[in-house]
């Protein structure tokens, strides 16, 4: 009897270990709003907080806007300014959602899994539902998440003169990568 209880306890403990939340504070978001007229609006942010809860199937991330690094100081200033992301007023972008096919992803088994993600993306203080498909790679204890999608700036109330003049893409490409522990 004692052995059975011990076995159940061990199985439960290992199960909860695998179901632990996976996080990183070094997620990467690449933002590409380049157009044929302007190759400058391109940035990366390497200090994004990302969390996946395998047990609940939730995915969340927080993006500090001022952490985006551009090559050119003036473009970075514009990006943070009131006509673009207005980072003084809206310092963080967030995503809260679920991986709808979480039951098909085995976080205990090496492999590459397709992840269907749905949730609410907040940029510039505006929240919109988004849906995309990403990839989760499991290798030993390491879990890597990747996704690529685009957002319509107008949906988030971003429509400054550079967007109208075609110098900034109306639908920038967002590439997310995270090594989770």
């Amino acid at each position, binding site marked *: 009897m004692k052995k059975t209880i011990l076995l159940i306890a061990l199985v439960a403990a290992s199960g909860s270990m695998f179901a632990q939340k996976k996080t990183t504070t070094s997620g990467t978001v690449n933002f590409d709003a380049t157009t044929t007229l302007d190759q400058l609006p391109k940035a990366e942010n390497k200090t994004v907080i990302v969390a996946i809860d395998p047990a609940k199937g939730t995915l969340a991330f927080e993006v500090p806007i001022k952490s985006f690094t551009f090559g050119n100081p003036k473009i970075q200033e514009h990006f943070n300014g009131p006509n673009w992301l207005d980072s003084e007023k809206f310092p963080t972008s967030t995503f809260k959602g679920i991986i709808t096919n979480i039951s098909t992803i085995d976080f205990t088994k090496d492999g590459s899994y397709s992840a269907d993600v749905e949730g609410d993306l907040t940029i510039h203080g505006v929240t919109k539902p988004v849906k995309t498909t990403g990839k989760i790679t499991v290798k030993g204890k390491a879990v890597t998440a990747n996704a690529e999608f685009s957002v319509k700036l107008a949906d988030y109330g971003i429509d400054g003169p550079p967007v109208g003049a075609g110098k900034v893409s109306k639908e920038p490409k967002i590439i997310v990568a995270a*090594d989770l522990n």
Partner: protein
Amino acid sequence: MATAKKRMNPWFKRILYGIIIVALLGAGLVWYIFSEKFADTSETPADFTVNAMDLIHEFEKNDSLANKKYTEKIIVVNGTVSGIEPADTTVNIKMVDTASGSYVIFAFQPQHRDEAKTIKAGDNVSIKGSCSGGAYSNILETEYITFKRCALNK
């Protein structure tokens, strides 16, 4: 038969030259502004030098005030490395206050990314970077401060 050469009004000539000079200067200025790159942080003078834990505590106490003081300033942060985190093709350096879980994290400038890879947890280091400010994370329930364009301060 000699053709009468019409002379340009001298004032019109001056105005035309003036417009051309202003247009050339404007174009030069725009070119300069948009082709400018961020300076190498290792060669940029620091606005502040702080201890990592003191910086974290200052943000925990009042992040609005701390953000006003430090954001977009070049800061030298001295402290003990708590961990190295993979960040796509490079690594970030992290210093954590073990009591609260609050942390400060450093993303390195492209030309200094190899330096970051030489750092190990437990090392006492001095890092110079541009402070992107701090905020409270609802995901981690801790305060966090991020730095960009960092370099080892030698």
